């Protein structure tokens, strides 16, 4: 489903070149739940941005659902992102003056669904995350955990095949983090492929597969249950 072969990404300024990814290779299969760990600056987020078509890359090949994305223009990349990928961010990234209904509606607007279809999907997504009764609330009226649930609903409303989560529990307390993680597992069990970047080894253990990124490369692949490097060293 997601195949990256020898992906390279360099960030340049006038003074320095930073090789964020070098010869990055990874394959994620349909229905997988992959946790990505690694130290700060190792390239985890760069990988996630490239996987989510938010960043371009200099070398290598990236196949999403068998499609080579390197030559796609902005419109095609946006369409692919809208139809196949859902994002969950550490800081939720909800739009503060839109209520929950309208926040979940954002990706659907760019999909071209009619009003009835959008409404059905929004209600269904909010129902799934347990917030159907708070559709008209603003994000500021919710707790952090609830806000992340709304972000998950937004990511799921378009029924993507691929969910990318960047530190989805990073801003939540342990209880809320556990709750969100349970929700992600449910979503994965329902068939959605998930790639999650996290610093938290305990959360990574809940994934089906772990990868460890260091210096822009996948340095270790772990099966579930194997000991992961300590996040404190990350």
């Amino acid at each position: 489903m997601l195949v990256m072969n020898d992906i390279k990404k360099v960030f340049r300024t006038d003074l320095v070149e930073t090789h964020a990814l070098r010869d990055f290779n990874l394959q994620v299969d349909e229905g997988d739940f992959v946790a990505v760990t690694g130290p700060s600056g190792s390239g985890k987020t760069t990988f996630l941005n490239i996987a989510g078509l938010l960043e371009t890359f200099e070398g290598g090949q990236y196949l999403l659902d068998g499609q080579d994305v390197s030559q796609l223009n902005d419109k095609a990349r946006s369409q692919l992102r809208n139809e196949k990928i859902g994002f969950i961010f550490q800081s939720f990234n909800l739009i503060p003056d839109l209520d929950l209904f309208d926040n979940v509606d954002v990706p659907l607007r760019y999909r071209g669904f009619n009003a009835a279809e959008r409404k059905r999907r929004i209600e269904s997504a909010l129902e799934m995350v347990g917030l159907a009764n708070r559709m008209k609330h603003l994000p500021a009226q919710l707790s952090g955990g609830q806000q992340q649930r709304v972000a998950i609903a937004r990511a799921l409303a378009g029924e993507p095949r691929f969910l990318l989560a960047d530190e989805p529990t990073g801003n939540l307390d342990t209880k809320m983090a556990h709750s969100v993680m349970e929700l992600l597992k449910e979503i994965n069990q329902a068939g959605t492929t998930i790639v999650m970047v996290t610093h938290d080894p305990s959360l990574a253990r809940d994934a089906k597969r772990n990868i460890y990124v260091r210096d822009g490369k996948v340095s270790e692949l772990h099966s579930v249950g194997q000991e992961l490097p300590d996040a404190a060293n990350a």
Partner: protein
Amino acid sequence: MFSYYLRLAFKSLRRNPILSALMVAAIALGIGSSMTTITVNYLMSADPIPEKSDQLYYVQVDSWDPNNPYDDESNDPPNQLTWTDATNLMRAKQAPAQTAMAKSGGIIEPVNQDDKPFEASIRLAFNDFFSMFNVPFLYGNAWSDVADDERQQVIVLTRAINDKVFGGENSVGRSMVMAGKTFRVVGVMDNWQPTPKFYDVNNGAFDEVEEVYMPFYLKEELELPNWGNTNCWKSPEGEGFKAFLQSECINFQMWVELPTQADKADYLAFLDNYAQEQKALGRFPRPLNNRLSNVMEWMENQQVVADDARMMMWLSFMFLAVCLLNTIGLLLAKFTGKSAEIGLRRAVGASKGDLFAQHLVETGLIGVLGGLFGLGLALLGLEGIKSLYGNFVDNLASLDITLVIVGLLLALVSSIAAGLYPTWRACNIAPSSQLKSQ
């Protein structure tokens, strides 16, 4: 998507009310000043009788001083006629419709003895005046050809004078005393105010139309005074009113209606023949220089749109440009503040084109709001002009529906132009940098 973008635009304006208000105010100021001057220029240069402005011609013949042209710079013939030429040309009846005319005035003695006499302006003309210039009638009609020829004491009143003297009743057939003579009312005009007052721009292109109309020859019959500009290149030979009428002094205007270009060529040939006849009689010492100018040509020739009005308009456009530069700065600040939202929208599938359209709708909304407030400021500006310059600009200082539409379109186009760069920048924000840092 337009309605969605419009809803987002309203929300965005509410999100930063002070910033939004500043942008709307900047555009409103620019539009207000521009629309004030555009309105004055537009009305100054408007076609006052579009349905036939290319068929009505102002007549000029060069009866002026052999040693000095009437106008040193342009070598144009005089802009008015002598009594002799006006009456000769009228008697020749070479145009399908024609009218010589002059401005005068007199004292009206109201029918009600309790009302005080008052002065009113008079337009001396031939009966074709009313049909040529499409003058609307409330009661009655124009006087007849016979009334012109026999110098009958008949008058047509404006609606305002009829209201004043006859209380607004149908006064056709009733008598009215003016300049010490009794006149019979044959018609009452409905409201009529061509702007500019093209038929006599020599005497105030933006003045009110005259209040009373009567046959041209009554000028001589009743020795009505000259109102308006009178110019002479040599003194009348003798004293008194008749000497003035027989002099080379110019105080009279003439219009002819010539439906086709062939009619115009024929009439111009007639004018040249007439000038040759006058040369044979010892008049018209200058080379042949006769003109026929249609309405818009005549407005241009007489420089109805004043140079300082044009200058003011360009200055106001420059002010609008300054306001738009400020708006660009404010939009940059506003859209920078929306970087996180823009990043999020990009992440969930918005293309650069989608975001460009969304933000152009937002700048367009700011422009329309600025335009609406700007039109309000333009109305205030026009009222200011009225209070500064008095009644003579009354007919210029008003917004019509065309100007309202122009104002809103100008605001919309200006704001969208101002929004292009901030919008382009907003669309090119790297989403990944915004999503992590929110």
